[in-house]
């Protein structure tokens, strides 16, 4: 078993005066202090980062951040799976420990985005799409999710108001999360009245542009016992799968099969079913994405995922709280950090330390997506 010795995030916000190395070091310093571990204890560093080379003109992020957190002698690697880089970094670390190749792994992610103007950030994000068949045709990332959303509204009994309910719920959750970027409640009317970005999606159907870092210190059970660490939250299972990068190459654009496959693998790895999950953090980069996630993860039938937010089932006090952190919509989405950030939020839930605590949470699930679903990781945590 692989356990979590500590997990920490910077606040997610716009911090255009900062750099990835600073943000990652800020999160890591908190994690080391909390775990009573020292940087030389780390065997390997996995740094999720999507666009450092595009916006900061900085590649080689693995070694750079390892050096800046005091792990110069550890092995290090940058993990890039678009917006699933953080989730993939955590999964790589779990595998390294399970394989016996490491006792302590620092897995995390970082992104600095607000230094660029909106068109250049949109351009950098578009690197997760098919350059020739999509970007050269003028398709943007919001546009890709808009194509999925319009088709969803066409195929199923769902409305723009239903999608807006996802944004309303997640923004409400962000209000009490001190690490969240957008701590302001929105109404359905305010969401729908925001400016269009790619119809039928509007500004508040979309997550903000964010800077931030999140890290997780993962340890083998043997190491935790030897050092007397409080590592009561464990990784019960993980899964990851891929899909066509271009939307045009998918048989359905209202399903996310990579998430279905990643979830199946993670449930089997953890030996649980969706019924066992108490709380989720899912990749709601756009409102439609949370709906598709809940269907792919097995919580709702196809076409029914909007019910969660509309009927309150996925609200903080509902039967299945989804994104109590505020999600990407409310908490923010520094793309390379997000997957690790979800694990940070869920670790707090399982320890009973979250500002939006879900009572009695024993099993938690994180769902992290790269592109429009071409990379997906699912991480299941338990204990606490």
């Amino acid at each position: 078993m692989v356990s979590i010795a500590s997990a920490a995030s910077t606040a997610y916000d716009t911090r255009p005066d900062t750099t990835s190395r600073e943000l990652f070091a800020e999160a890591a310093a908190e994690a080391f202090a909390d775990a009573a571990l020292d940087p030389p204890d780390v065997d390997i560093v996995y740094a999720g980062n999507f666009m450092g080379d595009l916006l900061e003109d900085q590649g080689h992020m693995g070694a750079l951040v390892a050096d800046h957190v005091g792990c110069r002698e550890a092995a290090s690697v940058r993990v890039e799976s678009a917006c699933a880089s953080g989730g993939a970094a955590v999964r790589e670390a779990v595998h390294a420990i399970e394989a016996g190749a490491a006792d302590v792994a620092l897995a995390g992610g970082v992104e600095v985005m607000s230094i660029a103007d909106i068109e250049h950030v949109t351009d950098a994000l578009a690197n997760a799409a098919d350059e020739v068949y999509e970007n050269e045709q003028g398709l943007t990332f919001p546009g890709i999710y808009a194509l999925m959303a319009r088709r969803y509204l066409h195929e199923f009994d769902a409305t723009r108001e239903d999608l807006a309910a996802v944004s309303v719920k997640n923004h409400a959750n962000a209000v009490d999360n001190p690490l969240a970027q957008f701590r302001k409640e929105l109404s359905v009317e305010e969401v729908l009245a925001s400016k269009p970005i790619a119809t039928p999606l509007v500004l508040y159907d979309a997550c903000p542009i964010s800077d931030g870092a999140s890290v997780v210190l993962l340890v083998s059970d043997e190491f935790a016992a030897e050092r007397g660490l409080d590592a009561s939250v464990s990784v019960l299972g993980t899964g990851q799968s891929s899909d066509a990068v271009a939307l045009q190459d998918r048989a359905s654009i209202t399903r996310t099969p990579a998430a279905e496959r990643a979830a199946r693998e993670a449930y089997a790895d953890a030996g649980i079913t969706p019924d066992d999950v108490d709380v989720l953090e899912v990749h709601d980069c756009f409102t439609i994405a949370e709906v598709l996630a809940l269907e792919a993860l097995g919580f709702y039938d196809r076409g029914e995922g909007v019910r969660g937010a509309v009927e309150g089932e996925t609200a903080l006090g509902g039967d299945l709280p989804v994104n109590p952190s505020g999600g990407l919509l409310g908490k923010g989405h520094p793309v390379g950090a997000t997957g690790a950030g979800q694990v940070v939020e869920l670790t707090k839930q399982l320890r009973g330390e979250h500002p939006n605590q879900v009572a009695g949470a024993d099993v938690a699930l994180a769902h992290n997506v790269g592109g429009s679903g071409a990379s997906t990781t699912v991480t299941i945590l338990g204990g606490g």
Partner: protein
Amino acid sequence: MTVPVPAWFDDLTDAIDTEEAEYRVCSACDAAVLPPRQCCPECGDTAFDTHPLPDRGTLRSFTEIYVTIPAFHGETPYTVALVEFDGRLTLTGQLRGASAEEVAIGDDVTVGTERRDEGARLVAFRPVA
């Protein structure tokens, strides 16, 4: 970053212009694919049959873009569409001759191309009158 348009995409758009475009269908599992695939994404097979790309298809989805990327700076709003051919192959391009408000999923459109600055090529769809 500006990168050259790959030769296979030039070849495809040239062929669309002269109504000679083709797509390939996996001999083993019937999955339809576009250039430059060398193996079937569904089953891994490498044998394909060739089919002519019809000159018209149907709108699978579309979106009017308001926030764009530098290559399309100043062109918003414009509409990007997914168009399905023969019920099994989809191409991405821009809608011409109609606004997003004037079309619906399932509408028939024709396919052509436009040449942009620096030689980039755009796939362009027009509603069937």
